[in-house]
């Protein structure tokens, strides 16, 4: 099985303040990893390092077994930012236009959408059940619907891995469930997923591995191992309550 992501002793600090310290982990193809930790634990910093937005001061990052410095196949990565709450209310874009942005890494000059690309956009919208909204403005949609559109944007290049940063912020409970169900289905079809979330109770129904960080990697393993470790520490973690 291919290593989709490998972190080797990765450290990053903002000035004198350590954000992540000496983190090593491997994500394999088909994993659904829940990246959890308290506020300020370094989750988003780690995500930015994985995505190449920040360069670690120490350690190495490998994507698809290639050093991040040499990695260029960004169409293999689907990224869903914590965006729904930040979309400018005046931004003039239809759902179709937003999803078409996802194709940019693979479009060749003059970057015109072909019939084949059009089908890819429609398919991605159909996967997230947003096809009937394709001509609506993204700002007219609810938070949950916007987040689905952003997933469609990430899926349009058929990526191998989907990385999501707190995707359900600002999304109501009912839509959150539908959203996680969708991620579960994508993972069942073989998609590798890394999900940063504080909603640890909800995500345990879907994740296959948990990475708990607080600057350092405190735990990385299966959900079962995480619960037994918690019981040893004699404090029931909410994470272990929901798993059926």
């Amino acid at each position, binding site marked *: 099985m291919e290593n989709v992501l490998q972190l080797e002793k990765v450290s990053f600090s903002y000035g004198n303040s350590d954000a992540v310290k000496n983190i090593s982990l491997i994500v394999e193809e088909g994993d659904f990893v829940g990246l959890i930790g308290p506020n300020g634990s370094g989750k988003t910093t780690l995500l930015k390092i994985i*995505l190449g937005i920040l360069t670690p001061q120490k350690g190495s990052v490998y994507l698809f077994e290639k050093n991040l410095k040499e990695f260029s196949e960004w169409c293999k990565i689907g*990224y869903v*930012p914590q965006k729904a709450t930040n979309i400018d209310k*005046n931004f003039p*874009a239809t759902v179709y*236009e937003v999803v078409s*942005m996802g194709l*940019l890494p693979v479009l060749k000059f003059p970057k015109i959408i072909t019939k084949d690309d059009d089908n890819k956009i429609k398919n991605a919208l159909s996967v997230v059940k947003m096809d009937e909204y394709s*001509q609506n*403005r993204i700002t007219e949609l609810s938070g949950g619907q916007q987040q689905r559109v952003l997933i469609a944007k990430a899926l349009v290049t058929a990526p191998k891995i989907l990385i999501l940063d707190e995707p359900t912020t600002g999304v109501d409970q009912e839509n959150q469930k539908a959203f996680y169900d969708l991620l579960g289905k994508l993972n069942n079809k073989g998609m590798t997923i890394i999900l940063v979330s504080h909603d640890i109770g909800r995500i345990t129904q879907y994740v296959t591995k948990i990475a708990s960080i607080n600057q350092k990697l405190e735990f990385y393993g299966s959900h079962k191992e995480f619960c037994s470790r918690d019981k040893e520490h004699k404090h029931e973690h909410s994470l272990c309550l929901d798993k059926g």
Partner: protein
Amino acid sequence: MIEILSYTFMQKAFISGIVIAIACSLLGMFLVLRKFSLIGDGIAHISFGGVATGLLFNITPFIGAFLFGLIGSFGILKLKEKSHLHGDTAIGIVSHASLGIGIFIASIASGFNVDILSYLFGSILSIKTTELVLSVILALTVISFILIYYKDLFYISFDEESAKVSGIKVDFLNSMLIVLTAITIVCSMNIVGLMLASSLIILPSASALQIKTSFKKTLVYSVLISVMSVVSGLVVAYYYDFAVSGTIVMINAVIFLSLLIYNKLQSHYSARRLSASQ
């Protein structure tokens, strides 16, 4: 209308006005969406220093303004990067330093203050053929760049971080946006003047955004509003002997206000219809 086109100075004004209107509206949409719209004002202040320096050393003021605008825009980028200042602070420092140079030169070298006023407030009578050719070439360069990178600019305006992850050269495009703004401001100097140069960047885009449609259509509306305001502004100013720059800006402001009011009324009535149907 035929009479107006029989004058060479009006022909020059229409040609450069239309090309500049297109460049300003295309560029303006991305600047407004990225909340960079006031950079135009900053670069206009920088260019004033260039105009005064040009007049002092007997260099075409257009060239002086262009060089100052270009160097100043890079200065803003470098200052922001090296000193970790906020963008608006860096714009303020560089633009006011250059504005100070301009005022200082104007005060020590009396004699060209009338010329300076024509660059500050625009003067279609003063458009020289070389300036016309240069401004059309530069404006066409701006238009071509934006059309080539339209999708990338759209993506970084929507979400810079995701665009970066997709491998889009965000830093290059951000720098180019500032350089293109410098070029556009200098090009529009003769028509609307440095004082109102950024109005053609901001107002047509802000008006088009009131129409609330797709991005592609919003961009087309922005270009149409911009061209329409420049053409009608030139015609009205010619027949009623008004100042061209003020007329163009006022037409733009009226279009913006009309669309804003229409938009508000429409939302109000649709909300009322919805509550009546429930």
